[in-house]
């Protein structure tokens, strides 16, 4: 050969290596996310050895895994065989005809249908490269691929083109009832970032493409756990509380008219003053809700990160679903009953101390209005679990503001200027000094709130969900602080593996990465870009 004659008697001067280290905190992040029952797949364009080593380095694959499957078939049949044999090892029943998922699929269900979770008998890993993936993503094999991959603890797809990355994400989106998040930093990740439900871009040296196309962008991978477990969780909690409270207060407000209709000849006469109706959602109850949605935290961030299991309600949609909505509706109906009939009973055939009238429409209206506002304020006070100064100002301030506006709207000056618009002259003065009214407000508030308090107290006690137990533990820990923060010792895979990989011809790579020649401390190995 020509090169054998040229490359002779050369003196080795040195070697170069490219060290592409993992970011800080990646393994810990992955462990935490696994605890939160979030499955992690690696979709990369790198070589298989690199990908596998990185996976071991950041705990996607562990040494104690029960098995690892490699799919590198070159045609449909081989790929299918490999996938099925993997599934046979993980869950032998899933290949039988009697398996529920199989029988469901043989009925050829119409789109869209979802494949349920299947539990394997251990922790397994799957490695598949881009060429095999190209075969597996065709129509008749994609369900096989999906079922096998979802049973594994971690999945590595290597040598992927950007299009295949997007296709894998879409496969999961289409057939699984799951929310997908794609995180990447390079221009080749853009397609998967756009395909996933949530796209996260890591800003870095590879340019701005990933960031510009993503929903969220930050600079380090480890911030993902804060994004999900702290901000995502808080956002879900706040949103659910906001929704259920908003529906409740509007049901309580509106259904009073339903009961009043029986007493007003079904003439659609409103119980409240028109100005109250205008201002109710706009002014009197808007700020407390805003405060709740912006500031509320059920546990603070340290505890959120320490207990990733708290993430579960968001995944199961536990806090606002059809059942919760119906509960909200029932609560609203009950509150409206109390809010109408208690003032009605107070006012029915009753008079003031000096004999003058109290049972007129305008006084009744003011009593019901004030009771309603007190009840909904107490309800949001109950729901707020994180009372900052701002929450106090918003909640109690709105109630005080209501009384100020009440006196303003029913004052002499305004009512005399526009008598036909402001008709409730003098009602505030004449009604708010009656002991009957305040006692009936207290009674309404108590009747509406005590059942709710009772339910909120008794339900986690007698019918706890898993989240309740964790929150219990947290409260216990808050009261009896732990001596040291418990840090799980990260078991580095350095006993058998290193994060370094070789990129040279096949033979050596397989030898070295199998771990047979490893010692405790490894001298730095170089990359030999030789090709023979």
């Amino acid at each position, binding site marked *: 050969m020509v090169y054998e004659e040229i490359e002779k008697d050369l003196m080795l001067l040195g070697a170069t290596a490219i060290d592409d280290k993992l970011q800080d905190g990646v393994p810990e992040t992955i462990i935490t996310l696994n605890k939160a029952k979030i499955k992690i797949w690696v979709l990369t364009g790198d070589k298989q050895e690199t990908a596998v080593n990185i996976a071991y380095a950041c705990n996607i694959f562990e040494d104690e895994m029960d098995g690892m499957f490699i799919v590198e078939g070159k045609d449909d049949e081989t790929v299918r065989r490999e996938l099925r044999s993997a599934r046979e090892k993980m869950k032998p029943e899933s290949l039988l005809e009697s398996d529920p998922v199989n029988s469901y699929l043989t009925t050829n269900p119409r789109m869209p249908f979802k494949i349920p979770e299947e539990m394997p008998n251990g922790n397994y890993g799957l490695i598949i490269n881009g060429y095999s993936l190209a075969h597996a993503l065709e129509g008749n094999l994609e369900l096989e691929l999906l079922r096998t991959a979802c049973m594994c603890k971690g999945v590595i797809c290597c040598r992927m083109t950007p299009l295949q990355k997007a296709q894998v994400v879409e496969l999961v989106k289409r057939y699984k009832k799951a929310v997908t998040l794609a995180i990447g930093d390079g221009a080749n990740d853009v397609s998967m970032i756009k395909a996933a439900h949530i796209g996260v871009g890591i800003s870095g040296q590879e340019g701005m493409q990933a960031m510009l196309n993503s929903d969220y962008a930050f600079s380090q991978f480890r911030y993902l756990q804060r994004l999900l477990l702290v901000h995502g969780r*808080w956002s879900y909690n706040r949103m659910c509380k906001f929704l259920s409270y908003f529906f409740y207060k509007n049901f309580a407000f509106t259904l009073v008219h339903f009961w009043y209709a029986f007493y007003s000849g079904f003439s659609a006469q409103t119980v409240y003053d028109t100005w109250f109706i205008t201002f109710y959602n706009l002014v009197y109850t808007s700020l407390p809700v805003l405060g709740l949605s912006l500031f509320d935290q059920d546990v603070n961030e340290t505890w959120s990160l320490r207990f990733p299991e708290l993430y579960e309600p968001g995944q199961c949609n536990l806090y606002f679903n059809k059942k919760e909505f119906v509960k909200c509706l029932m609560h609203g109906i009950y509150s409206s009953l109390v809010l109408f009939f208690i003032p009605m009973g107070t*006012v029915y055939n009753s008079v003031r101390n000096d004999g003058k*009238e109290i*049972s007129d429409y305008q006084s009744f209206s003011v009593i019901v209005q004030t009771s309603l506002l007190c009840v909904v304020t107490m309800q949001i006070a109950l729901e707020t*679990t994180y009372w900052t100064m701002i929450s106090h100002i918003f909640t109690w301030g709105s109630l005080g503001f209501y009384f100020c506006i009440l006196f303003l709207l029913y004052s002499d000056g305004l009512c005399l200027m526009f008598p036909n618009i402001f008709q409730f002259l003098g009602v505030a003065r004449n009604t708010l000094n009656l*002991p009957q009214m305040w006692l009936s407000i207290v009674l309404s508030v108590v009747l509406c709130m005590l059942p709710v308090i009772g339910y909120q107290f008794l339900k986690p006690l007698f019918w706890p969900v898993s989240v309740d137990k964790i929150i219990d533990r947290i409260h216990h820990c808050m009261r009896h602080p732990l001596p040291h923060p418990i840090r799980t010792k990260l078991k580095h895979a350095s006993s058998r593996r290193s994060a370094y990989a070789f990129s040279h011809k096949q033979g050596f790579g397989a030898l070295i990465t199998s771990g047979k020649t490893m010692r405790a401390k490894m001298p730095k190995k170089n990359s030999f870009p030789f090709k023979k």
Partner: protein
Amino acid sequence: MAMNYNAKDEVDGGPPCAPGGTAKNRRPDNTAFKQQRLPAWQPILTAGTVLPTFFIIGLIFIPIGIGIFVTSNNIREIEIDYTGTDPASPCNKCLSPNVTPCICTINFTLEQSFEGNVFMYYGLSNFYQNHRRYVKSRDDSQLNGDPSALLNPSKECEPYRRNEDKPIAPCGAIANSMFNDTLDLFLVGNESDPTPIPLKKKGIAWWTDKNVKFRNPPGADIPLEERFKGTTKPVNWVKPVYLLDPDEDNSGFINEDFIVWMRTAALPTFRKLYRLIERKNDLHPTLPAGRYYLNITYNSEKRVNSFHTLATLWESFLHGEFCSSQRCSKIKTSIPTQLYTARSQHTEQYVLTTVEKADCACAKPEGSSGSGVWIFVPGVQFSRLVGSNGAKMLRSVLALRQIAQRTISTASRRQFENKVPEKQKLFQEDNGIPVHLKGGVADALLYRTTMILTVAGTAYAIYQLAVASFPKKQG
């Protein structure tokens, strides 16, 4: 995939993306507000907080409840029903009187004397002062003495806005339906000489109403009649508003009975303060025990007419939206105690009440207080009314139409006559037409249009459903 980045270095190192953006530090502030670390109180619902709360609330509420119950049981009241539906009642003759005004007398006996202030109320049941259209029907600027509103009342008062080409003062249905029975109380001392009990008519309305909200038109030295020049009395009143009381301080819009009536009640059964019987300064009781009689000037005929007029008018203008003000008059006199504070001198409080449960002709002849369920189907209500009277006439459909037209045109010319008998004739006619088509051609047309629209709409909906059930495969 992995990058070597110094964690502290978060300067935006890429090409500038914002217009004019130099590489600036985009790190958010590490303040407590922006990092959501504001100091906060985090209450937890534990057994230690919830159970004591429940007990404390119970312990507070039980004595309050007992106190209220005991004090409210100390109120004594007497209710006297003077509706006159019972043929044995003295006021039965006033239901269809021969002479107006009809005066009837009810005797009653007080077992124990009443001390302290005695309040006399009249009560009505089944009178929907809280009906939406009724509540709107007033002009507050006119009642506040605004001269321009006096002569040009608001449109809300329709149809009680103008009469005989003059504006009505006070306008509106509320004013028009004012309660005008008068009641006089007499103590039967010796047989020959019944003593009238002095009934105070001032001090029954809210101070803010009497002094701020309701004002007579301006002109302090002009006589009251002059100030109301150019207006006419409401249709169903006997006297105009400036003659309600000889005392100028209680006449016109500031007449306290009028003010009390204008403060519309919240519920269909209500009571309104009528008169005060003040306690005497000496040691005699306000109302000693003994026999009394109540003289009632019963203006129910007018009232009944006014209802049916009301009902008919509103029927024609509002398409049957409002149907009943059935007046069932009650008169109550009562004194409430100081309900929540104990007052040692007035340990006994008495209430003298008269109650009348009227026979409400509209929906249920039995006289029970009806709710407004039948409003939705005015046709049904009318047929019941008609059915109970049952005049049968044979006419052709054409004549029916003529009558209907005549009724309507008459209505437009003479707005305040009683159209109920005509309507009864129209809808009672025994010509085999179902009641929903009896009104004439308009009924039939409306019915057909509705049917066509319904059928077409249903068919279209089914068609769309069919289209949506078979989605086209996305190519």
